[in-house]
């Protein structure tokens, strides 16, 4: 259920984002999901890729500051209130979300979250029969 997400530290400089994507492109690694968090002088690119271990090594070899973080992905119907319902389960269980990102795809929406307590979060989602996305599925999206 846990999936590996890459986090890359990037200075706020024109072209840095392009360079990351070019490195991955050269290696034939696909980005299935990504988001960027930023502040005044740097940003962090978080993304799920087709081959996380190889992508990590390739980026490191190219001197990017990259780290691996475990996240969990789930799917819910692409309808009003679906996300609210799942998030409600988590807050009831006292699980805090550090960050999340999501994208809708037709009738379904995929959500990636980084909770403070990963195992407890997965446990809650399982109990509530939320559709968890296997890591292998996430990498292939």
């Amino acid at each position: 259920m846990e999936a590996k997400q890459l986090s890359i530290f990037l200075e706020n400089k024109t072209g840095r984002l392009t360079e990351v994507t070019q490195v991955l492109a050269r290696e034939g690694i696909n980005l299935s999901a990504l988001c960027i968090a930023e502040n005044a002088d740097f940003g962090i690119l978080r993304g799920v890729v087709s081959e996380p271990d190889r992508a990590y090594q390739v980026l490191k070899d190219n001197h990017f500051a990259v780290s691996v973080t475990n996240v969990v992905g789930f799917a819910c119907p692409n309808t009003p209130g679906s996300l609210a319902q799942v998030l409600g389960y988590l807050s009831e269980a006292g699980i805090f979300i550090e960050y999340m990102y999501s994208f809708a795809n037709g009738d379904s929406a995929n959500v990636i979250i980084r909770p403070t307590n990963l195992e407890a979060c997965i446990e809650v989602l399982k109990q509530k029969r939320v559709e968890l996305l296997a890591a292998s599925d996430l990498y292939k999206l």
Partner: protein
Amino acid sequence: MIWNETMECMDRETLRKIQSARLKKIVDYAYHNTPFYRRKMQQMGLTPDDIESIDDIVKLPFTTKLDLRDNYPFGLCAVPMSQICRIHASSGTTGRPTVVAYTRKDLRVWSECVSRCFYAYGASEGDIFQVSYGYGLFTGGLGAHQGAENIGASVIPMSSGNTAKQIQLMHDFGATAICCTPSYALYLAEAIRESGIPLEEFKLRIGAFGAEPWTEGMRAELEEKLGIKAYDIYGLSEVAGPGVGFECECQKGTHLNEDHYFPEIVDPQTLEPVEPGKTGELVFTHLTKEGMPLLRYRTKDLTALHYEKCSCGRTLVRMDRILGRSDDMLIIRGVNVFPSQIESVILEMPQFEAHYLLVVDRVNNTDTMELQVEVRPEFYTDEINRLLEMKKMLHGRLQSVLGLSVDVKLVEPKTIERSTGKAQRVIDKRKL
């Protein structure tokens, strides 16, 4: 080990007598052979007869880097060119290069002084020296080279740069000692780690680092990363080159070879001598130089001198770690800042690499100072808050050490230039 026990451990009274005799001789020599000094002394109403002992040195005129530039290239030489056998010159980042010329005897004295350094580090004929200072006009490479040869060691005349080759030869030739700038040594240490060759396969045990100011924190880091003992070697080309001073095994200050290069500390504003142990500008007078003897040369280096006998047995005066050249000192919003202070703060925090860049500018008539630092790979985190906390911690420590607010900027790994010679740590845009 002590290379020249007679001179290095002599009782201070006898040393003073020798220094007095040598000063009288060199002043007489300069007066009669260097028109620049004769003119200066005549203007002050001085003759060589006014110098009776080393205490009279305070009567003599000072010499500055500007004097060297004004007399470019050979105006301060005291011998005809036929007796000069080596010429070195500073890189001359501002204006003309500073030229120094040596006679055969000057080179011998210089080698003698460097030999004292290497012996003090525990090196001897069994050692293999990798000299990674630049060879050429810069005195570092050839200076260290001659000294190592003089003690009978084997020398790898590597020069600076070409890091992959440096590591390969250091490994394959079994170098036991390395001479380079401390910033390049750090870079080498990183490169060794990246090469994947285990540190145990290297035979390195001694590092002779100099040509730029460095800190105790940097020493600890170099010793740990390279598995060596790291020693300071002090020098400046105007005086000789490396080997003007050195640390002994006690590492309680840098011994100066004061039988050849007589040191004084003066107040940089009033130019009056300060009491022993008090900080001021270091000034050197050549006691034995033939080619280009300088009287009371102002180094701009700020330090203090201690005359108590060292536990190593040497009586040679000891100098404190150089806080910085008064030239390096930045005045930011009226506060004196030395890059070495910033460096020591960074080195105390394991989260950051030792490489940094300080960018000074003036915006709306206010000085600004931006410090660019790299976070070490193992400390990069996915959490922005943790990164911001690191930044805040560094900012806070700098504030307490400098009394100034520094704008800290976290940059990506390997984006700050690694130097192979003297590191460029400061960009002052205000002067441009």
